[in-house]
Every structure is written in C-alpha cells, then in structure tokens.
C-alpha cells in the first residue's frame, strides 16, 4: 500500500467477521484514521500476505503469530491483543461416569481433541499434558479436525469435543476455557454428566502482527485507533462483544513460550 490507509488482514472464520471489521473501520474513520480490511479464508494465506507486504497488519491466531515470529526471526512487530487473549487456559473436561480422578488416569482412555491447528483444543493441551508427565502414546485420541485453516477460531471442534463427552464417545476432552465457561453460562453443559478435571498453565491467544518494514507512524495510528475503543460506549460495544473482548491490551510475547516449545518439538 502506497497511500496512508492502514490495510488490515483478518480471517473470515464466520460471516460476523464482516460486521466486526466494518464496525472497527467505522470507528477508525470516525477518529480520522484511514483504515480498510481484507478478509482471508485461512491463516496460512494471511500469514504469507503479511510476509509479502500485501497487508500492513494481520489479526493472527497464536499459531499464526508464532509462525510470523519464526519466519521473521522475531523481528515482526506485535501491536496489540484482546484482554481475553491474555492468560488463556485449556481445560481437560471429563465424563463423570468415566471415573477419572487425575490426568494420570488418562492412560488407556479416549481423549477427544479439537482441530490439529487449534492452539487451545489440541496443540497446547497435549503439550501441557506431556509436560505434566502423561504418556500420550497410551492415550487414545479422538480428533475432530473441523474448519482446518481457521486455527480453531470457529469453536466447532471444541463443541464436537463436548458433544462426544456428553454422549459417551470420549472419557475426557480438551477445550479452551472460553468455550467451556461460555457453554456453561449459556446452560448448554450438563453438569451432572461432565466436569472440569484439570486446567493447563496460562498461555496467550491472538495478536495483531506487522512486518518490521512497516512505516512506524502507520502502526502508531493503528494502535491509537484500536486502544480508543471502549466497552461502555454503545457505538463500540456491539463490535467488542462480537469480537469477544472488553478491552484492547498492549502486546506481550512471554505468553507464547509454550506454543514455541510445542512447535520446536514438532519440527524435530
């Protein structure tokens, strides 16, 4: 982009992505900040487009963010994240009737997991179980590889995990704590059948990424627009609700250490 318009890439994991980004753009324009967006169908394409300079900023999942960090040898610029992206955790949820008392009891049992590119429902829960001493070679995995390329954004694989637990196809399952809490609050979890057994250590979720070559002034304008959105402003409220946050936060990298470890292990 040669003009001053900030071009943001996001993945259209749901039709509401259009509503969200039109709302954010309207807010930016109202602040006098020229911004537009491009929607991608998957994170792999979005990451390539960011690396090639086709977009100024990419709204990335933790996996896409980690890949950008690795591809740029940590030179990429992180711009901001949602409050809800910080200290994310995954849950190991169990079917009460299966009688698991601790994660060590997973040996010989069926563990339902989400899509292979879902950080919260597959990559990190397995990584943390491994680190906690669970021999994954002895656990039967029941994977739900739905919406691959969307990195677990759609939540469909996590809902499949919960379904498998409710109807007895799995003894345990891995889900992100956001879905777990929201499904409980919405009354869609039968607490007499399933319960949380274990919680992973915290990790961070999505991040706005930019290339080191991006004009500094442009990135500052982006952050200014982003951080001026307020939960109790009716004009911002709907967009923030749809995007699942109450407040935009500054970036931080330490929350991705566990994901990098998992990716290192994968690359070996």
């Amino acid at each position, binding site marked *: 982009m040669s003009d001053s318009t900030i071009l943001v890439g996001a993945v259209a994991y749901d039709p509401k992505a259009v509503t969200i980004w039109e709302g954010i753009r309207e807010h930016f324009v109202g602040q006098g900040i020229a911004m537009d967006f491009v929607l991608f169908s998957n994170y792999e394409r979005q990451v390539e487009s960011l690396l090639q300079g086709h977009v100024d900023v990419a709204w990335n999942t933790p996996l896409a963010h980690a890949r950008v960090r690795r591809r740029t040898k940590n030179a990429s610029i992180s711009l901001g994240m949602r409050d809800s992206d910080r200290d994310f955790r995954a849950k190991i949820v169990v079917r009460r009737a299966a009688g698991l008392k601790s994660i060590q009891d997973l040996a010989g049992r069926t563990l339902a997991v989400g899509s292979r590119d879902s950080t919260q429902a597959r990559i990190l829960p397995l990584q943390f179980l491994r680190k906690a001493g669970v021999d994954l070679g002895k656990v039967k995995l029941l994977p739900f590889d739905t919406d691959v390329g969307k990195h677990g954004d759609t939540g469909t694989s996590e809902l499949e995990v919960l379904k498998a637990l409710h109807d007895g196809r799995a003894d345990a399952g891995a889900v992100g704590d956001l879905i777990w809490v*929201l499904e409980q*609050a919405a009354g869609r979890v039968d607490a007499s059948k399933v*319960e949380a057994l274990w919680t992973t250590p915290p990790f961070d979720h999505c991040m706005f990424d930019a290339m080191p070559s991006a004009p500094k002034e442009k990135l500052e304008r982006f952050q200014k627009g982003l951080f001026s959105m307020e939960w109790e402003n*009716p004009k911002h409220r709907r967009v923030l609700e749809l995007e699942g946050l109450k407040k935009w936060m500054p970036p931080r990298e330490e929350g991705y250490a566990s994901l990098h470890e998992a990716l290192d292990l994968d690359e070996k």
Partner: protein
Amino acid sequence: MSVVAIDGGDVPLGGGLLALLRPALALLRPGGRLALLSSTPSVAQDLPAWCRVEHHEYLGAEALPDGRTTHLLARGPLGILRAADSAIPERADPATGFAPRGASVEPGGPAYPFTLLERDHVIPPEVASLYEQAVSSQWVAARDVPWATVKPLPPALERAVGQTMTFLAENELSALYVPSNFLPKIHPAYAEVAMFLATQLNDESRHIEVFLRRAREGGGTLGVSSVTTSQSLLSLLELTDFTEAAFLLSVLGEGTFLDLLKFVERFAPDEATLVLAQKARVDETRHVHFGLAHVRHALGRDPSLYGRLEAAVRKRAATMASAGGVPAPLADALTILAAGGADPRGVRKGHEAFRELLETMHQNRTKRLEHAGFSPEQAKTLSDLHTPNFM
C-alpha cells in the same frame, strides 16, 4: 470495602452456581470482595476462568478442615448499573430505552429515537388522575347506547343526522391519528402520558364507531366530507410539535367540539343520539382537561411558548385562508337538526340556534384559552383565528 459471603453448596458452576454468584456480585462495588463456600472440586477449575472472562479478579482459595473450600474474588469494574430512580426525571436519557422508570439500567445500551425528553414539555402533574378517570369511565358502544330508540325520521332530518354524524366521525378519525404520531416519540420515563393517550385513542375509536352506527341506524346514509374539513384536519396531522398539537387538537379543537356535542344533545331526535353525544362529550372533556393541563404546565415553565403557540394558530389560519365559514353541508345539517325538520317556521329557529352555537363556541374557547394561561386579549385573538371547521 464491602464483603459478601455466599454458600454455593455442592452446585457446579455450570449447574446453577452462577445464579447465586452473579446476584451476589451485583451487590458489590468494583473491588468489593466475595467469599464463596463450595464443596464441589470442579469449582476450583471453573471459577478462575469465569472470572477472567467476566473481568472479576480470582484471588485464591482456602481449604477448610471439613473438606470444603472458600474461594475469594474481587468484583470487576464492568457492568456497574446506573442507580435506580423512580422519580420522574427532568430530562430523560434516550439510552434507557424501554426500561421502566425505577429499573436499574446496565450502561452501554443503544440510544432510542425518542424526542420528547423534557418533563415540563411532556408530563403535566394531573396525568395520573386523568388516566385513572379514563380507565374507570370506559363504556361499550353496543351495550351502553339505547339503539332501539332510533326510529326512521322524516327524510330531511334523517339526512341532517347522517351529515352531522359524518362530520363527527371524520373529525374523530383525525383525533385518533394525530396523537398516534406523538406516542412513539414520548420517552418511556413519561409512560403515564403514553398510557393516557392510549385511553384517548380508545375513546376516539369508540366515538367513530357510535357516530357511524347512528348515521345508518335509522336507515339513513353518510353525508358529505368537505374540502374545508379535509384541509383543516390535514393541518393537524402535519403538526410535528407535541405541545402545539395538544393545544390545537385538544384545547381548541376538542374544546370547540364539546359545544357541538352539547348542541347535538339538545336537539337529539331520539334517546340514542342524546346518550351517545353525552357519553362522547364526557370523554372529550377529559381530553380537553389533559390538553389544558399539558399547555398550562408547559407555559408555566416556558413563557416563550406563548409566542410559539400563537404562531402555530396563525400559521394554521393562513393555510385555511381560502376556506369560507363552517362547511355548508354541516351548517345546513345543524340548522335542520335544530329545526327538527324542513318546516320553514322551524328552520328560522334552527338558524338562530346555529348562530348561537357559533357565539357559544367563541365564548367558551376564549374562556379555555384564558384558563390555559393566555391574557384576555390574546385569548380573543386566538379564538377569532380558530378554524371554521371547529376542530
């Protein structure tokens, strides 16, 4: 700093615990502490995650000797409700939407397109008692009018009744539509006004029903709708200011209508006509009272309103300048009605009665204007400018 303690028993977070937790947190200010006693181990897994999502702070857990756990949390900064206030606000906030007055409103809601937001321009103090009167005075057209007393009349008198009823129904249709324009603009903090208007709309519907039925009951037909009437009623429908509309429709229009209904009662050819005119007049009197209360209250708070209301009357008079006097079909019908038929000796008296009616209308209008807060000179000027259509 306040502290609240609740016993969650063995209820899991996803099994109903939130119904205990959320109301307890709502009692606290941001930073206030809540202690939750629970015997369910999964609560330790779920509560920190729920706190993270809802922006409360999970401070930790303490195991008790009996195996239960006390979880401690601090209430987060979001979702603080606006204090409930059941007093009628001087200025209403469009962002409280349809929340009934006295409800605690969560901040961040959308602004509603209500435009009548000022107490002194919307809600006179008398509205509550007028609403009660309206509710207890409702009547039923089919039951409460002695329709059996209607007998066929001589043709000229039958036509006069049909014409008079047509005129009454046409005007009442406008009285049904004009307030309807303002009802959705009234902020629900002043719901009593909207509710009173709803009774008024119901009254007008009933009046339309009885006037049309009376026109046909004795075998007669409807009469003429004249251009003067049509122009006059359009000028009411086009009003965009609530107080101007209350003034022109209720104080001047419906006020004048009272004298007309009284005239119909006086010369009613049968008991049914007498009763329906009487009952309609009682309802209309209430509407006039509401209009007077509204205008008097608004004038008392905002003296500049005199000029605006006078301008509204002048503007309406200007748009009606081409119209002559009372629409001819109506003038004739009222004359024949008062004469009791087409006998020339009676018609002379009927004409006198009609002229008296116009004079009575002018005098009463002037009195009502003075009652609303205008000076005698202003009242006379405004009454003279009033539409020849009566309404």
